[in-house]
């Protein structure tokens, strides 16, 4: 039996490629989920719509015709669906499965199960009824269970639409309506629940159903659980994998960035497997499939190359490409067409490339050197080249971009000093610049864009002993869709300035290689006054004087004496000059000093807006309205999977607290796992580490707050203080719940508004730094923090404790959602945070489901107290004391 299924799954992976063209050509791709789905987050109405349309379907579908469908048939149906990968069909499939389930229930009891294959083919009421409660009961909370059930029932009695549909369903299948089905069809059935059932259910039918239901969720919602989905795909049994795969493949076809993210995650989460199994594992296979670029949308495939070539934007071609409605070429065999089309594209690019000197030359360079040696980024530009050779081009630019960033990190790690690293980084990046703009983007960003330039001089190497993480700023142009919008035309660095000898000549900006390219994307910036930089030192001087607030005699007198024309000598005291000098030197504390050993301090201290402004002014692309500045930390040699996990938990908690209206402030930051030892992190802007604050300012934290925000009574200070408290409460809870360790001041940031932000979740859950054993306190709360909050007796400190309590109660209410994230990731993982067997149990215990709110309050008090005291005293274990039930 198992063998049969295995074969099926193998066949399944291969089948799509063969069948896709035919099916895809017959089925319009235009109705992708993104179009057909309502934009409101709750996909309620849609689902109500679904049954209505489906109700007639069983009458003419095969469903009833087959007397008693075995489960094998069901899974067969699913495999077929994978070929189609169309939401319409997927929808139908969902319904079919549902119908079958219903049918089974209807006639199931009597008839025998032909295949007898499924562990429990009948979805008997009893089984089904137990299922939903299953995860809850594992949670061990008596509190949540009733609540949840209550919620499940809620919509049917509240929303009219659902009532209608429920009635219809009941009419259709009046008596044998299962709870599970009702749950699945209720509008409360969200991604989180889907993931949970996918993980916990042992029922292939249910898994298949959920796999299909994934299509109906909004992309962003599912994307949040992508690590979970993929981890299940890799490490759980066949059925789950089969259920997930169609969805993943479908999304991969739709989106380059999704493809890459999947591939990266698959690689990262497969890495813990044994090398021999890894090679043949499903995850690796899917990853290869994605990287082989087989998963491009069939209809788009033919047209893709011209749009990808960065130097021929073909603005007239883009509308056709735009959207997904390119299903027009049914009759033709897509594969053949592809071939011819790409060929002709190649000739186009060849004919163009006679003018495109840059592109024409670069492949030569690239081929002449080792990929690792200089940088693989060369091939970023070789898209034209790739078109000619016919190698996959869809994912290549972005992969090369990431690869070259990682390559830089690797090479930096070999250099001994920060100074050398920084220098090297800058020059490597300037090299990278020559390849930009290209169809590449920062995966950590929230909007679609193309990277146009890396202001290389702004990049900094971050503090790390042996690795070389670095922070880069990236100039991007926002666009509609990075896959279809044309890549911006390269503007040379030199474009911002006018020529000295000849002014105002038309047509001056078009160099030979630009002439070939239409300027549709770039407005005629020759008219743009802001594109010209200030050029005279004289002009520069003026604002300097006016903005200079301190009374400066020497400055003043220079201006006056030149204008006054009087020959009356002006005298100044040497002492004044000396005094001004020392005063001005003392009066510039808001910027940090340049420290060769800590180059990032100065760069991070600069307010983000100022930095954006400054970089924009210096950029040849700065005048374009869609210009944006992004930043990213590139980490090479670090495993970011734990970071990703922590980030997910943080995001979940943030949602929970928002939902429960607890004014706790936390800042989850985006993590991109590229492999098990590399990735990218979205930096937090306007924030420096407390370590840097203290080192640079040489004063206690409270004094720094006073200096930055004003005295105790000012509104700015009070706002900053409140921000501090709200963020502190959030992170204290997180540190406690996730057992975040290694909390030194370098890992805690302070932003310009006074929030603290914890970074570096390298030690969470079961793992803690070696040698230290364990940090005894529940979280880090130093006396300096308390001072900022206004001392132990202050209102703000009480507010802090109250926030912690509220936050804990809220988190406890939604504990499942948090636990689920962690639990799924434990599957097959060797991460240190899952070390030992009790990780999940301990995590659950920390939510203290059994305590009353009063008891929780005491717990919070104890924890705060303990953390306070652990500064001076040794081990304080009131918390243990408490959990043992003694008040």
């Amino acid at each position, binding site marked *: 039996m198992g063998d049969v299924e295995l074969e099926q799954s193998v066949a399944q992976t291969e089948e799509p490629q063969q069948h896709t063209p035919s099916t895809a050509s017959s089925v319009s791709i235009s109705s992708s989920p993104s179009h057909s789905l309502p934009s409101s987050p709750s996909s309620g109405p849609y689902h109500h719509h679904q049954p209505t349309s489906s109700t007639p379907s069983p009458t003419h579908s095969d469903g009833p015709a087959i007397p008693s469908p075995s489960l094998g048939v069901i899974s067969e149906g699913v495999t077929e669906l994978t070929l189609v990968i169309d939401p319409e069909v997927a929808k139908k499939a969902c319904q079919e499965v549902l119908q079958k389930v219903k049918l089974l229930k209807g006639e199931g009891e009597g008839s025998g199960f032909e295949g007898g294959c499924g562990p429990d083919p009948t979805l008997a009421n009893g089984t089904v009824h137990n299922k939903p409660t299953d995860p809850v009961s594992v949670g061990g909370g008596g509190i949540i269970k009733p609540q949840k059930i209550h919620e499940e029932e809620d919509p049917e009695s509240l929303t009219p639409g659902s009532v209608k549909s429920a009635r219809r369903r009941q009419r259709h299948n009046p008596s044998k309506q299962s709870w599970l089905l009702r749950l699945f069809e209720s509008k409360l059935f969200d991604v989180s629940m889907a993931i949970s059932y996918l993980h916990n259910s042992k029922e292939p039918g249910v898994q298949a159903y959920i796999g299909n239901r994934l299509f109906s969720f909004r992309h962003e919602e599912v994307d949040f659980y992508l690590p979970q989905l993929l981890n299940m795909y890799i490490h759980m049994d066949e059925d789950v994998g089969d259920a997930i795969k169609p969805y993943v493949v479908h999304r991969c076809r739709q989106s380059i960035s999704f493809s890459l993210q999947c591939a990266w995650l698959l690689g990262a989460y497969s890495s813990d497997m044994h090398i021999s199994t890894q090679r043949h594992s499903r995850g690796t296979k899917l990853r290869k499939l994605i990287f082989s670029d087989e998963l491009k949308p069939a209809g788009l495939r033919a047209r893709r190359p011209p749009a990808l070539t960065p130097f021929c934007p073909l603005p007239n071609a883009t509308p056709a490409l735009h959207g997904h409605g390119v299903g027009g070429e049914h009759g033709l065999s897509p594969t053949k067409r592809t071939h011819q089309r790409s060929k002709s594209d190649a000739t186009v690019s060849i004919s163009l490339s006679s003018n495109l000197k840059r592109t024409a030359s670069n492949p030569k360079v690239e081929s002449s050197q080792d990929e690792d040696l200089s940088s693989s980024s060369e091939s970023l530009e070789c898209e034209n080249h790739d078109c000619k050779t016919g190698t996959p081009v869809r994912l290549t630019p972005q992969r090369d971009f990431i690869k070259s960033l990682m390559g830089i990190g690797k090479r930096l790690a070999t250099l001994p000093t920060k100074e050398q690293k920084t220098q090297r980084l800058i020059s490597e990046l300037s*090299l990278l610049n020559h390849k930009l703009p290209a169809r590449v983007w920062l995966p950590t960003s929230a909007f679609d864009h193309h990277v146009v330039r890396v202001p290389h001089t702004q990049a900094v190497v971050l503090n790390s002993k042996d690795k070389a993480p670095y922070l880069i700023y990236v100039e991007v142009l926002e666009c509609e869709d990075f896959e279809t919008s044309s890549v911006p035309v390269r503007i040379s660095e030199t474009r911002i300035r*006018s020529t000295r*000898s000849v002014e105002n000549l038309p047509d001056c900006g078009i160099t030979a290689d630009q002439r070939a390219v239409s300027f549709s994307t770039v407005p005629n910036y020759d008219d743009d006054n802001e594109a010209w930089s200030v050029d005279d030192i004289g002009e520069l001087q003026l604002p300097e004087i006016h903005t200079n607030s301190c009374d400066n005699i020497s*400055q003043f007198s*220079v201006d006056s004496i030149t204008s006054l024309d009087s020959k009356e000598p002006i005298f*100044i005291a040497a002492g004044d000059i*000396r005094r001004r*000098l020392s005063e001005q030197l003392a009066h510039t504390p808001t910027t940090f000093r340049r420290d060769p050993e800590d180059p990032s301090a100065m760069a991070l201290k600069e307010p983000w807006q100022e930095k954006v402004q400054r970089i924009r002014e210096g950029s040849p692309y700065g005048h374009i309205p869609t210009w944006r500045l992004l930043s990213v930390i590139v980490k090479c040699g670090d495993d970011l999977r734990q970071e990703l996990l922590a980030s997910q938990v943080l995001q979940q908690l943030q949602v929970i607290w928002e939902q429960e209206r607890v004014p706790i402030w936390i800042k989850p930051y985006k993590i991109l796992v590229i492999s098990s030892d590399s990735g990218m992190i979205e930096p937090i802007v306007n924030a420096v580490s407390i370590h840097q604050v203290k080192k640079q300012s040489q004063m206690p934290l409270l004094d720094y707050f006073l200096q930055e925000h004003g005295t105790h009574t000012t509104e700015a200070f009070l706002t900053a203080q409140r921000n501090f408290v709200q963020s502190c409460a959030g992170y204290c809870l997180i540190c406690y719940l996730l057992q975040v360790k290694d909390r030194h001041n370098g890992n805690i940031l302070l932003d310009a508004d006074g929030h603290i932000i914890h970074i570096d979740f390298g030690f969470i859950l079961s793992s803690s730094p070696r040698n230290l054993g364990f940090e005894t306190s529940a979280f880090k709360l130093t006396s300096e923090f308390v001072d900022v909050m206004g001392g132990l007796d202050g209102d703000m400190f009480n507010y802090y404790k109250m926030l912690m309590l509220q936050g804990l109660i809220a988190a406890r209410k939604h504990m499942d959602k948090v636990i689920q994230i962690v639990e799924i990731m434990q599957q097959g993982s060797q991460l240190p945070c899952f070390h030992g067997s009790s990780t999940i149990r301990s995590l659950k215990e920390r939510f203290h489901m059994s305590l009353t709110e009063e008891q929780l309050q005491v717990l919070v008090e104890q924890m705060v107290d303990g953390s306070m005291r652990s500064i001076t005293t040794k081990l304080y274990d009131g918390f243990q004391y408490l959990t043992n039930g003694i008040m």
Partner: protein
Amino acid sequence: MSQVEKKAGLLRRTSSSKKPLKEKVVLMYDEIFKEDPAKNNPRFWDELFLMKVNLEYLETKLECLDGDELMKTKDNVNSLFHHCVQTLAEEHQIKVVNALQTLCALFRGVHQKNKSASGFDIINMLMGFDKAEHRMKDLMESLDSLLCGEGSESLKALCLKLLLCLVTVTDNISQNTILEYVMINSIFEAVLQILSDVSSRGRHGYDAVVLLALLVNYRKYEASLSASLSLSLSLSLSLSLSLSLSFSLSLSLSLSLQYKDKEEENQGGFFSTLTSMVGSMFIADAEEKLSVQTNEAILLALYEAVHLNRNFITVLAQSHPEIDIPTTPTTPVPTTPTTPLGTTPPSTDVMNSSELPLDPNLQTSNLLITFLKYSSIVMQDTKDEHRLNSARLCLIILTCIAEDQYADAFLHDDNMNFRVNLHRMPMRHRKKAAEKNVPSRPLVCAVLDLMVEFVVTHMMKDFPMDLYMRCVQVIHKLICYQKKCRIRLHYTWRELWSALINLLKFLLSNETVLLAKHNIFHLALLVVNLFNMFITYGDTFLPTSNSYDELYYEIVRMHQVFDNLYCMVLRVSTNAGQWKEPASKVTHSLVNVRAIINHFNPKIESYAAVNHISQLSEDQVLEVVRSNYDTLTLKLQDGLDQYERYSEQPKEAAFFKDLVRSISLNVRKNVSLNTLSQDILLKEFSTIS
């Protein structure tokens, strides 16, 4: 007529003595100068271009024609030219090669003949007035397509040689009337394309850059000339990365050349610093001399780029970590983790590897750094005319850079730190490699270092006044920028101060000698005003309050120099004479320095007396300085931070005219069509055709 026969006879005799027969091609040439050659043989032209060109003969032949004959054969020469141009468009590559070479010979020969005559005759002679425009258009178009086409590299090289030949036929480039047509039928795009392509840049970069540099100087002062305008424009726009790369390449090449020379010198046993200094002045062998001279052309191109093109400043600043790739593709520089960047002094790495003559800093180098290093070498020796010119050009380029606010911003960018190993002249009184580990600093520090180095090393009898003026002006401009933008550069200003004071000292002690040739008061005024900048505006740009104290310390310590200077200028200004005016200016400018000296000297003396110390330590003096600021009043002087902006005209025009002329001559001498021997071409094309 007789002359021609004589010459021809001479040729015949010599050739007949060795070879019984005259070359076929020579016979054909002769035919051209007699009557219409196609009259008898309709395939004459086809055949001609299949023959191997005899450049010398053709050139001499043209040279020897006198006026009448010339007029007679004019039509035939025109026709030869016409057919050359036509042949360029043919597919047969050997014909193309021959046509190109024939054209070269034509241009050269006719010019040689008509050295004194006006250019219009030349045009008439070659092409005929009526057809000239048309012919030249065809020629340029053919060259354009050859240069841009996929053809052989040697062919492209030959095209560039032809262009160079065309550009340099006259001594004064502006008298070359044919260039008018070159300007109209812009060939620059083709040349720029050559430059922008990595592989062709390596091969033809030098010729292309020289060509552009020369063309820019064609009637550059006649602003009305639209062609020149468009050239400077196109040059300025497209001298982007590509050009800078070929600059880098050529500069670094010459750099390595010189390194090697030095190295050989050292290994040759001249270990005494004195002898090696002398040695470097005399050893200049032919090759090195050549390299210096040819680099004049490169420097000129760099100057034109910097001067004409503000955009080029950004190019200067771009890092080019990859410039070593085309030259040394085999050396995996970045992957060797054991060699830390820039820690090895340049002298050793020359010794270590002949393959990689440049220091490992190269990866993070940029054109500006290369230029600074190159300048540091060039400035070491200003004895001969060419080297002096090169040094002057370097300083002019630096002046342009220092004036440019954008460049200044880059120079002062705190984020852009570089290690620049400048070359210091070995001198008796200082240790050679005292500072091996130059910390990486903003580039302006390197510029200042270079200036300080120049100031210190050129105080000689044959005083390069002009260079000194430029040097001090560069410093002044940089300080003005810092003052205006309130940039507190962490630079050891003390070195600059003592260098400047030493310069004053030198001027004083050689007053009589120098005054005979130069206006030393102008330089002295500039120097004193630099001090005035520090004294009155130090609060705006000095890095620490201690540095202000140190300034006073330095002035007080060297008070004798200032005292003497004051005495001298006072003396000169009281005497009537040509120096009265400039000397009195210096007198006025010294007021603050003298105030400081007069204020602090007694204080220090009394401090020493009170504390019974004969020799005060630096700290003690600084202490006295610090505690006595408040009783000192300074006079504010105007115009300290104002300077005259650099302009090429009219001051520098003569210099550049001469420079272009010398480069022209040099290029003409070295454009060797024969070196690009036909054998190679034949070999290459025989396989093709």
